């Protein structure tokens, strides 16, 4: 049996091996074989600053799904040290409650620093988990850079986690989270300052809300927001992220944990995103974004392979000497390579 066949047959060892190959960029054939088997899992991105309790929340959310009899794959991303190339992947520590549960698969992944590499690995890994039959795939990442924003574009529903007392006021909360958040979660909601955090988020939502039903929601590249279809009612075609307060470390059965409300918010978003209006557009945007990103990476790789090292160094020297400006340098390289990039 091929590795892909083993994954489809339910082998966890094969799945783990496949994820390694995906990380190393060596799973092209397997992913092609598995792609027809994807599209069933609901992918949830979880992002937010360090210290907001993301791993504990992932742990609690996964447990909630398990009580519903659903299976969960988890991809937990941690940063690679830019100085040493190594990483401490410690998210599993927070997920002890999920140990021994055959309905859960947890994989830790380091960012590895390469441009676009992580979002490709995370996206392909989510697909592998999807093909392996998991109902939900949770991707947890640190919401610090562009890479992480790209990862959440892989997700169907994105949760942005905030916590009180981390310097949250209107200025501190990044306006950019409105671009990516489908649900805003204020975790550690038993901490002082939670009311201010919720108020700050609400104020931001009000500022970001279009004042007219007919105005289009502002797009930045591959935003997940959809242009309002002409004639559609505002409530029907706009998704305003709800704010949910959670205390992820509390027992699921404790109403103060907020997990019931969180799961409800996720399911509401899922219903919205899969309704006939939105589904096709969102899917189209997601795939378009992915193909553009892959084209960028693929073309870049080919180009860099074709450009002789000393020619490139020569160009750099000329730019440093102010003989050539950077844009002209790039155009010169491309002109030289035209015709030699095989497509």
């Amino acid at each position, binding site marked *: 049996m091929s590795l892909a066949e083993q994954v489809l047959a339910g082998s966890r060892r094969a799945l783990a091996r496949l994820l390694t190959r995906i990380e190393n960029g060596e799973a092209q054939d397997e992913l092609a074989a598995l792609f027809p088997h994807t599209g069933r899992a609901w992918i949830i991105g979880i992002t937010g600053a360090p210290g907001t309790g993301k791993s504990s929340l992932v742990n609690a959310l996964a447990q909630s799904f398990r009580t519903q009899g659903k299976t969960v794959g988890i991809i937990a991303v941690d940063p690679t*040290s830019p100085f040493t190339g190594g990483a401490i992947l410690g998210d*599993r520590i927070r997920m002890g409650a999920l140990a021994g549960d055959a309905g859960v698969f947890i994989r830790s992944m380091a960012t590895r620093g390469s441009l676009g590499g992580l979002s490709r690995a995370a996206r392909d890994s989510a697909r592998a988990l999807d093909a392996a039959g998991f109902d939900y795939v949770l991707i947890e990442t640190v919401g610090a850079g562009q890479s992480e924003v790209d990862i959440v574009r892989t997700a169907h529903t994105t949760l942005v986690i905030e916590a009180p007392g981390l310097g949250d006021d209107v200025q501190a909360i990044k306006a950019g989270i409105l671009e990516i958040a489908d649900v805003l979660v204020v975790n550690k909601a038993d901490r002082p300052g939670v009311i201010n955090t919720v108020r700050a988020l609400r104020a931001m939502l009000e500022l970001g809300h279009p004042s007219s039903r007919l105005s289009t929601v502002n797009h930045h590249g591959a935003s997940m927001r959809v242009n309002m279809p002409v004639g559609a009612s505002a409530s029907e075609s706009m998704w305003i992220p709800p704010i949910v307060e959670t205390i992820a470390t509390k027992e699921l059965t404790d109403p103060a944990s907020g997990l019931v409300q969180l799961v409800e918010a996720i399911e509401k978003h899922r219903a919205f995103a899969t309704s006939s209006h939105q589904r096709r557009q969102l899917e189209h945007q997601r795939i378009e974004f992915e193909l553009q990103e892959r084209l960028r990476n693929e073309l870049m790789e080919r180009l860099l392979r074709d450009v002789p090292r000393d020619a490139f160094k020569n160009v750099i020297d000329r730019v440093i000497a102010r003989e050539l400006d950077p844009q002209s340098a790039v155009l010169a390289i491309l002109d030289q390579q035209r015709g030699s990039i095989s497509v």
Partner: protein
Amino acid sequence: MSEQRSIRILIAKPGLDGHDRGAKVIARSLRDAGMEVIYTGLRQTPEMIAEAALQEDVDLVGLSILSGAHMTLIPRIREVMDAHELQDIPIIVGGIIPDEDRAELEKHGVKGVFGPGSSTEEIARRIREIVGEAAPE
């Protein structure tokens, strides 16, 4: 980014031993040596260690044992790992391990024993050696 595969190593403290400073020091030094360390912390059962090793597809499992229970824990962990078809994942151990137990541990497939005072460079080097030996080529 270099094409070199990153070494993925699981670091776990099995049993009831609560002294994790050594394990954390090793974890950080291996990160500084360019490895990806899946650090699972305290109170790991053999089943949890095997499950994590499987899901994370690690190159090695590193156990930190200061409690003296290594002769019970390590064979058990090896047994559970093998039951999960993880025979090809080597184990190394750090902590308080008397010399007279080392030979026995090697019989249980332990590829390295590092007592207190082992240099972190030595540990990293030995790990690279072990992973290099196992690599198919």
